[in-house]
């Protein structure tokens, strides 16, 4: 069975936010409006976090694109009282919007703040949306799914054509949109896949590794910054 994962090369990231916009369009992620955004209610499954480099005399800004890290041992799924969030056998941490009661325990438990809440009705079904992704109602938690619907589509296409799914047939919108190829996606359980090779790089690290959550989004450090 596949174990889906992602490598993000921070040396290549320019902070252009193409991944953020591609994600929003792909997953019907609502634009909450300026008023709500100022209140800290932006929903951004893929979020580019910024940090000013303290060691740089010019105050260079560093970027950290952060989707859901799809932990292999996710703190969020443990606390869900209704099985609305769970890790599926292929390692994707999923959210069942139709079951979520909106207690926000998973948000409080996620050390990466990768979960978002629909504080109001931000979006209703309408034209121009991706029909493969359901629109979330107010009062439920949502999050990055590694564009799980694309996996289902790729698998069905392969099935219809009577063949195995090829590597590269399923990639999330953010990886597809990245102009510098900073985001690489694939099957971590296949040692020959590009993503698995990169994950073995000496530059590879995981966010808050010491927490033992074992994220499946792996970062490559900035070579120069590290010296």
């Amino acid at each position, binding site marked *: 069975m596949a174990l889906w994962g992602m490598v993000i090369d921070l040396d290549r990231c320019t902070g252009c936010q193409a991944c953020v916009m591609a994600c929003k369009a792909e997953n019907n992620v609502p634009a909450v409006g300026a008023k709500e955004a100022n209140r800290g209610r932006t929903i951004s499954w893929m979020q580019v976090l910024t940090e000013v480099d303290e060691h740089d005399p010019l105050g260079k800004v560093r970027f*950290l694109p952060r989707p859901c890290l799809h932990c292999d041992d996710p703190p969020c799924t443990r606390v869900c*009282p209704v099985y609305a969030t769970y890790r599926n056998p292929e390692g994707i941490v999923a959210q069942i919007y139709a079951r979520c009661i909106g207690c926000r*325990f998973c948000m409080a438990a996620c050390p990466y703040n990768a979960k978002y809440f629909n504080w109001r009705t931000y979006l209703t079904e309408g034209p121009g949306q991706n029909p493969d992704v359901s629109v979330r109602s107010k009062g439920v938690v949502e999050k990055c799914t590694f564009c799980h619907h694309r996996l289902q589509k790729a698998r069905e296409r392969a099935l219809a054509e009577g063949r195995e799914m090829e590597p590269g047939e399923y990639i999330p919108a953010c990886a597809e949109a990245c102009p510098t190829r900073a985001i690489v996606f694939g099957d971590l359980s296949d040692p020959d896949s590009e993503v698995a090779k990169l994950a073995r790089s000496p530059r590879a690290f995981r966010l808050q590794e010491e*927490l033992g959550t074992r994220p499946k989004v792996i970062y490559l450090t900035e070579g120069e910054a590290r010296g």
Partner: protein
Amino acid sequence: MAEVDTRDAILLAPIEQTGRGFYWALALLSLAILWGGIAYAVQLNEGLGVTGLHQPVSWGFYVTNFVFFIGISHAGTLISAILRLSRAEWRRPITRMAEVITVMVLFIGAGQILVDLGRPDRVMNVIRHGRYQSPLLWDATSISAYLTASLVYLYLPMIPDIALLRDRLGKRKLLYTVLALGWRGTKRQKKVLNRAISVMAILVIPIAVSVHTVVSFVFSMTLQPMWHSTIFGPYFVVGAIYSGIAALIVAMLIFRKAYGLQGYLKPIHFRYLGQLLLVMSLLWFYFTFTEYLTGYYGGEVEEMKVFWGKFTGPFWPFFWGMVLTNFLIPLLCLVRLHRHSIGKVLTASVSVLVGMWLERFTIVVPTLSYPRLPFPGGVYWPTWVELGETAASFALFALFYLLFTKLFPIISVWEIQEGREMGLKEVEERLLTYLPETAEGGAHGS
């Protein structure tokens, strides 16, 4: 069997007649409840966006209130059970007041979670798809067990008093007849009742301890800085009993004044409870000190962000306000209780109620305000919706309590009578058994 000592007629007076004060209180409380009702209607319609909650502070007033009110619930049943089991004679006018707090406040506390849900219409999913891996399910189990046990424990010692009302009072005959369960005060009935009360008193203690332990687990089972702590269970239980006693004292003083119960609730009762409050204050400080010192000494980066956020950061008024109201003021008020004991105990209790609310707030909100990753931060500030809901919660609790006192005697009539008739003799006999048997005049040995 159902005669009342004329001396105790005052205990039934609030049920027999209603004064103007009651309607004023009713109007005032209804106003606060109306505010909360409107706030909740707006929230239900527009979503939790009408509150001040945001990313990353996704829990605020509602969860603080939840922990606070569930904490208050420890006043009653636990204290009453301990006093009964230790056969403390001074318990007699207190136990029912305490037990009523528990039952009423548990409804309010559990209700906070319902208010906090984004999709309250799906609350039954907790039963339909409930998953015991989640500490919230432990809460649901523990709190419903506590509510059931507390209700039974409140009801059992009420039966003789309800029978009294059935026989004496002209009104609400059906209600009292049904609830009295055919009590006639026979020897056998009394024996069964006393046995049942003892069993419930023992049963209720472990349940009460479990309740606040699992409430703390909601926080300590996560990996978040200053939540992930092993002493949170006992720390929360101590805080719960602490705030519970304070709430009990305030309730006692209010009804002492309103219903003229000075003859029953004497300064000695408040001195004893004040001493208990002082012990809990020191215990609470001990836990708080240990918790923060270990955090500080470890010096873990994420812990320290939250730590300094509380000590000198934006949460300093809450943190130092908590230290002042939860430790310094009670300590100053309670160390010497010889004179002005009632005023001092009241000041300390009100202070502790404020302080324990602040304590719950400084546990819930600061941790969420300092995410590990470099997120744009934001300070949580409640809107009129949360304030209204909070005001309504307190008012609803007061209203429930008030209505209870209009239906049932708030001081157990039969237990006071029992104290007069049998308690004295029993204590004397018990005292004799403590003393060396050779002494002839042992009864004077006190």
